[in-house]
């Protein structure tokens, strides 16, 4: 071993696990042969000794105990803050989910009951109040027997419900009964007709589209008068356009309500 190699190994000679036993023996053997390297080894061992003393002297040093208390307090505060944050996020998520469910439910409900808001229209006084049930409308004889309402109105409701019973996919024109009422195609078949009413309305022609009526019904501008059978929950069940609307005559309605107007 030469002096350069000796200096390279010197710092590690007393460090466990770094040099092999053979190399350590070579280092000490070189120090016995070389005076300068021997002095260097002595000084290095003295430094090791002093460093060990310093390490032992400082070995028990540690941060003041107040620091641990301060950090524990911070830890508790942060943990509480995180828990509050987590609870807040949980509550927020629940609230958002509830609002979403409500909104979706409302939208589905509107979709089932005619697609949302009714078209802008002027509603006249109810022409007549009818009290047919769905079962009565389907069973003609019992329906006639139980209806306390004027016969003409009951017939209109019955016709409207019969046409509606053909199914929501049925053609609008096919659903028109002999009194001119057209069942609205997207009404709920199971909707109760207790306390249903026939009301006369006046609305823009363009608004007829929202009832699913044929395009020709919407030709021309202005407004149109129509009779609506409206169930107790406000859902239009059937519509009849006033055939004399353009001439200003209202005989159709007069006939329909049996002189109520």
């Amino acid at each position: 071993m030469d002096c350069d190699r000796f200096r390279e190994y010197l710092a590690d000679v007393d460090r466990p696990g770094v040099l092999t036993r053979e190399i350590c023996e070579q280092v000490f053997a070189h120090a016995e042969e070389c005076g300068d390297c021997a002095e260097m080894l002595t000084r290095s061992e003295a430094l090791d000794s002093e460093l060990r003393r310093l390490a032992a002297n400082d070995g028990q040093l540690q941060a003041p105990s107040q620091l641990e208390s301060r950090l524990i307090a911070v830890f508790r505060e942060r943990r509480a803050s995180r828990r509050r944050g987590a609870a807040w996020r949980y509550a927020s998520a629940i609230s958002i989910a509830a609002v979403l469910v409500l909104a979706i439910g409302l939208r589905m409900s509107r979709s089932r009951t005619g697609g949302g808001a009714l078209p802008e229209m002027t509603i006249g006084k109810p022409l007549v109040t009818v009290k047919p049930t769905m079962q009565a409308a389907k069973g003609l004889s019992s329906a006639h027997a139980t209806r306390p309402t004027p016969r003409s109105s009951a017939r209109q409701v019955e016709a409207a419900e019969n046409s509606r019973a053909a199914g929501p996919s049925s053609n609008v024109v096919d659903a028109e009964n002999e009194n001119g009422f057209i069942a609205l195609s997207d009404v709920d078949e199971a909707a109760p007709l207790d306390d249903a009413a026939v009301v006369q309305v006046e609305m823009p022609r363009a608004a007829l589209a929202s009832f699913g009526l044929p395009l020709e019904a919407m030709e021309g501008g202005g407004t149109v008068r129509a009779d609506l059978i409206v169930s107790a929950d406000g859902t239009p069940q059937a519509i009849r356009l006033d055939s004399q609307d353009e001439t200003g005559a209202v005989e159709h309605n007069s006939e329909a309500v049996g002189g109520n107007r």
Partner: protein
Amino acid sequence: MASGKVNEGRGKPSNDPMNRGAEPTDEDLLAQMMAGSEEAFVRLYQRRQPAIYRFALHMSGSAAVAEDVTQEVFMAIIRDASRFDPARGTLAGFLYGIARNHLRKRWEQEHRFVALDEDADEERALVSMRGNGFAPPVENQGDDLGRLRRAIGTLPENYREALVLCDLQEMSYEEAASALACPVGTVRSRLHRARALLLEKLSDERRPRRAAVGE
């Protein structure tokens, strides 16, 4: 070098047969701490705090700075322990890394302002003597340990880190390399250089004294 090595850098349980299998690793404690366990935090703190504090003390030469740095290290893991990535090293290395960053910030703050009066030259000389770091501690500077501390305090920062970790904290090269985020060979060469410089400084200190005694 010294016998009775302390596994400062390891996140493994102690090798003490009495404790083998009973002690959770640093990473276990950290995970429990992140789940809200105060006990895990306290155990981790008590396990790692002394070495971090002594490292900061030897690097800064100031008990107040060492306390502040130790506080910052543990505040960092309280605030955001998820920053620790086990794939990149041990938790001990991560903690030493935070301590080193804070020591550097401190050192930069201390030297941001330069004196403008006639003492400026003296200040610059003092900074030069200190190397890249704080002044050595002033207490007990008259005895051998005081001289040794002062000599260590004048080493350049990189050399001092290697010496403090390997010779005072008794870490292996691998552990020191993990703490310093550098290769083992770099730690080894820095340590050799640090020891050579230290021997030189201590010899320089002794020589005038011997000369004075001889006169």
